């Protein structure tokens, strides 16, 4: 029986519809790229050029001084040391927070799914509920409690806070991952005499490497981009880059140095952007996993 067979490559004649489609995509791409373009050209201009009010114009000469100022000389209030302290603070906060939360989350997910000790479901339910609640309700008592144990306004304190607030999502992702691991694997290892930790380190963690990567991406960008927790818990000496950036831009008196501000903004965005561009589908998988956690 002869059927019309729409197989093979799709017809791609130039029709009005195709032109419209590409037009839509190009306009959309312009909308998404314009802010990035604007940031970059602004950061390369002198203030005299910026005052002309041609935000989209290319810089007349390449002037890198705004970048240098942003990195090492921009002022937050009365101190003028640039965004670099914030950068290193963010590194110092993010790296241990990610490592610790991924580790704890992996152990949790493993214990909850493959061992299911007493109360596992209750714990999981509590954790998921905790993950939905806005931070604002936890903040004040946490500040007091952290102050009591001497962790308020310290690097260890802000790291602990990130690990705590990351737990729900990280645990969920690892639990969902380990649920799909055949139980027999765990049982066989137990028969062979391996204990909880040995099975974890020698079998389950190696199996979970893809999830470790995905969760690390997700946590890294999330913690790097955090503002609220850093503002409240980090203390003056450990303020993350996002908070310092906002201080540079929004508390300046007199005329704002927009070129410096935009250079500082790019510097703040550059780490998550680098992760995004370099890790590509891992990042996408991470945010998709985080989004469709249901």
């Amino acid at each position, binding site marked *: 029986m002869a059927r019309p067979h*729409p197989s093979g490559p799709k017809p791609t004649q130039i029709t009005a519809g195709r032109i419209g*489609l590409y037009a839509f*995509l190009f306009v*959309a*791409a312009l909308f*998404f*790229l*314009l*802010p990035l373009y*604007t940031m970059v050209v602004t950061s390369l201009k002198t203030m005299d050029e910026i005052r*002309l*009010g*041609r*935000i*989209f*114009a290319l810089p007349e000469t390449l002037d890198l001084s705004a970048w240098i100022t942003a990195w090492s000389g921009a002022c937050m209030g009365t101190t003028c040391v640039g965004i670099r302290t914030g950068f290193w603070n963010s590194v110092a906060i993010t790296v241990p927070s990610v490592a610790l939360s991924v580790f*704890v989350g992996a152990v949790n997910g493993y*214990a909850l799914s493959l*061992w*299911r000790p*007493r109360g596992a479901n209750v*714990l999981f339910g*509590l954790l998921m*509920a*905790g993950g*939905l*609640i*806005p*931070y*604002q*309700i*936890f903040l*004040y*008592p*946490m500040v*007091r409690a952290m102050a009591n144990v001497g962790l308020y306004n310290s690097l260890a304190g802000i790291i602990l806070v990130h690990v705590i607030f990351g*737990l729900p999502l990280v645990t969920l992702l690892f639990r969902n991952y380990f649920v799909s691991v055949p139980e027999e694997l765990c049982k066989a290892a137990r028969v062979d005499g391996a204990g*909880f930790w040995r099975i974890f380190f020698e079998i389950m963690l190696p199996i979970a490497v893809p999830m470790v990567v995905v969760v690390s991406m997700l946590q890294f960008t999330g913690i790097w*981009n*955090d*503002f*609220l927790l850093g503002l409240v818990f980090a203390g003056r000496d450990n303020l993350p880059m*996002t908070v310092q*950036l*906002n201080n540079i831009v*929004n508390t300046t008196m007199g005329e704002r140095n927009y070129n410096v*501000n935009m250079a500082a903004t790019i510097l*703040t*965005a550059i780490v*998550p*952007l680098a992760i995004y*561009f370099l890790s590509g589908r891992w*990042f*996408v998988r991470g*945010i*998709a996993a*985080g*989004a*469709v956690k*249901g």
Partner: protein
Amino acid sequence: MPMKRKPHLSATFALLPTWFVAVVVFIGTMGWSIRLSFTNSTLFPSSTYVGFAQYAKLFSSAKWLASLQNVLIFGVLYVGGCLLLGFLLAAALDRKIRFESAFRTIFLYPYAMSFVVTGLIWQWMLNPTLGIQASVRSLGWETFVLDWVVNRDMAIYALVLAGVWQGAGLVMVIALAGMRGIEAEQWKAARIDGIPVWRIYVSIILPQLGPALAAAGMLLAMGVIKTYDIVVAMTNGGPGNATEVPAKFIMDNLFGRQNLGLATAGATVLVLGVIIAVAPFRYAMHVRSKAKGAR
């Protein structure tokens, strides 16, 4: 249930820190905050209970009411805008486009950046004296107006614009993944029946993406309730109360104005808001999974 397990000491032990976090940190601090909301605490916690007085004060505060209204307008337009633009972008990319991955990269990159960064970029672009407005005027259109960030009536839409720019890519990724999962047979059948492409997307594809889009919408909505950074970076609540939001109101009263009772009352209302927002969605998922199980 598979087999009955013996409770295992190591597993129980390994979960102890998490038990601590769940019970002490999540439930404990929440209970403490809710308790404070019924006291007359100002700078320091007090144990003088005043019933619902803080809530009465809260809901007679023009700033709080404005913040609720703002977050509602922002939330509806932001979530709706992200869903609509994200779906349209996904549908366009699904049409066997050249340079698809380049487009995808361009549409998603803002999502990697923080709300502070997003707010600052758009604050700069929308700056009326030096930004887009000035640029267009210098081209000869002298009466062009784009003063959203400094205009009381428009500032909230400036936030929406920046928010949609940041978040639409997420919806696109989720919708595109869903579209790629739809069987080719459905496409063939619909094309043979002569149904136009746009109708296929609206009547066949969209319903199948429903649960994934609902999950994305849910996630964005949760973000709306927590909205803080982008407002601080872009407008700091102004002009006037035009972009004041509940999360910022709470933070200001918690740490700026030393008004603990009022702040915790606001936070409690926020938690109730989340429960009200999430409950129907959870219930729908529950009913759906039950219906599937019964089939």
